[in-house]
């Protein structure tokens, strides 16, 4: 079982014989079992050298960096072992052909909206939530009539706005918010959503890298120079399904409290204890399994992300038309 490793403290990597150790500022030493690792997430300030990167390459371990505020900075990826020119050429073809691109963009939006509505289904007894859901559904129905990517994006944006507006009815009062603020997040709820979404992004990216997909060629989001935008596309499906579910659980069970946030001058961020609580719940969620109808075995939420990648490859190579995940359980 491959494990993820999180470094919250600041410190340095030291090598002794064939083992790497993380040594924090208080000189506490912890060995890194690289042969069992898949990802390292670095939230602290860490010194290391290329020896360390070589070793990560050797063991195919990715290392993701976040800045002090918990915002994603970037990733060191060992050179990709999965290369299929045929797949990439066909993936690009689905971007270049406007009709094919629109098809995929709509699939991501419809799955995302499906999962948003799914999150609200247990709160229908609140009139306000029920009417928001109706409104979301009617915007979702518009998807059939729009074509261009900005319009598809627009539908997605409206649905999402409505969805966030429902949060005030289903989350504890102290986490009320006016609107979604991203850069920077202005209140605790925004802070936890931002953090969760960026963790989801790297999780999806890690799965994409295990396949032959090119993470830079995307459909709903414009391929961008700053991000692996295919990861943003696929994350649309999983943000409501995974991130929001984790947030609801943590806040409603009062596991994360206002004291798990840091209030800076113009923004709010999760502090270390908040991040740790989120990550623990997140990993528990990723490992939760569901019986897959076609594979006929239990599959973890994390593996569902990989399967989504496989389905996209099959779509690109003309094997089977892509139908996004719509959680049926």
């Amino acid at each position, binding site marked *: 079982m491959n494990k993820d490793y999180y470094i919250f403290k600041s410190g340095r990597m030291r090598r002794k014989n064939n083992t790497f150790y993380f040594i924090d500022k208080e000189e506490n030493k912890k060995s890194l079992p690289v042969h069992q690792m898949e990802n390292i997430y670095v939230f602290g300030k860490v010194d290391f050298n290329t020896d360390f990167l070589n070793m990560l390459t050797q063991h195919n371990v990715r290392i993701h960096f976040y800045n002090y505020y918990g915002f994603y900075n970037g990733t060191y990826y060992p050179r990709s072992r999965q290369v299929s020119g045929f797949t990439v050429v066909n993936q690009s073809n689905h971007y270049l052909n406007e009709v094919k691109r629109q098809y995929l963009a709509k699939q991501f939006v419809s799955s995302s909206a499906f999962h948003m509505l799914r999150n609200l289904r247990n709160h229908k007894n609140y009139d306000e939530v029920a009417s928001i859901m109706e409104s979301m559904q009617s915007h979702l129905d518009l998807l059939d009539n729009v074509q261009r990517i900005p319009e598809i994006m627009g539908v997605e944006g409206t649905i999402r706005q409505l969805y966030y507006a429902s949060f005030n009815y289903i989350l504890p009062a102290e986490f009320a918010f006016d609107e979604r603020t991203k850069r920077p997040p202005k209140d605790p709820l925004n802070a936890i959503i931002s953090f969760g979404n960026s963790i989801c992004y790297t999780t999806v990216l890690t799965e994409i890298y*295990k396949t032959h997909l090119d993470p830079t060629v995307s459909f709903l989001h414009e391929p961008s120079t700053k991000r692996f935008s295919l990861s943003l596309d696929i994350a649309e499906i999983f943000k409501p399904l995974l991130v929001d579910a984790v947030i609801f659980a943590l806040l409603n069970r009062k596991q994360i409290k206002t004291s798990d946030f840091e209030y800076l001058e113009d923004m709010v961020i999760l502090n270390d204890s908040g991040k740790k609580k989120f990550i623990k719940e997140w990993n528990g969620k990723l490992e939760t399994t569901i019986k897959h109808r*076609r*594979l006929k075995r239990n599959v973890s939420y994390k593996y569902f992300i990989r399967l989504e990648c496989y*389905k996209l490859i099959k779509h690109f190579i003309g094997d089977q038309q892509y139908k996004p995940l*719509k959680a049926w359980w």
Partner: protein
Amino acid sequence: MVSGLHIQYYFVCHRKLWLYAKNIQLEEGHERVQTGKILHERAYKNSEEKELAVDNIKIDAIDGEYVREVKVTSKMTKADKWQLLFYLYELKKRGLNKKGLISYTKEKRTEEVVLTEKDEEELDKIKESIQEIMEQSYPPGVIHSPICTKCAYYDFCYAEEGEE
């Protein structure tokens, strides 16, 4: 160029052959691939025999007049046999006339394989149809056979949204 693995896959599943030809490989964490490797290392550890790899031929070992292959089980005999015949044919074209031996470790059984003229004709046909499959622009369909559950492509082939 057609290789021994192509011959194997041709007899197992055309879709597998096509996916492999397009370099869509799903090895990560796949158990059976690993078993094969380990078996390989063990079987020839203390032997003087050498592995031979030229062009499209990759032979486990050549031992006197015999080319030897080791397999875990006899489940895919036909594929194994044709792979070996293919190697014998390729060697013959290079001026080496050999016979083949396949050992099945699980059953502790060894089988001799001799290349005939008829086999050669058949191999020419097989190679041609392998070329045709590899050049198809779409993958052949899922074969829905019991071997699928043990195939490295199982998750890929069966990753789909089933209806209720």
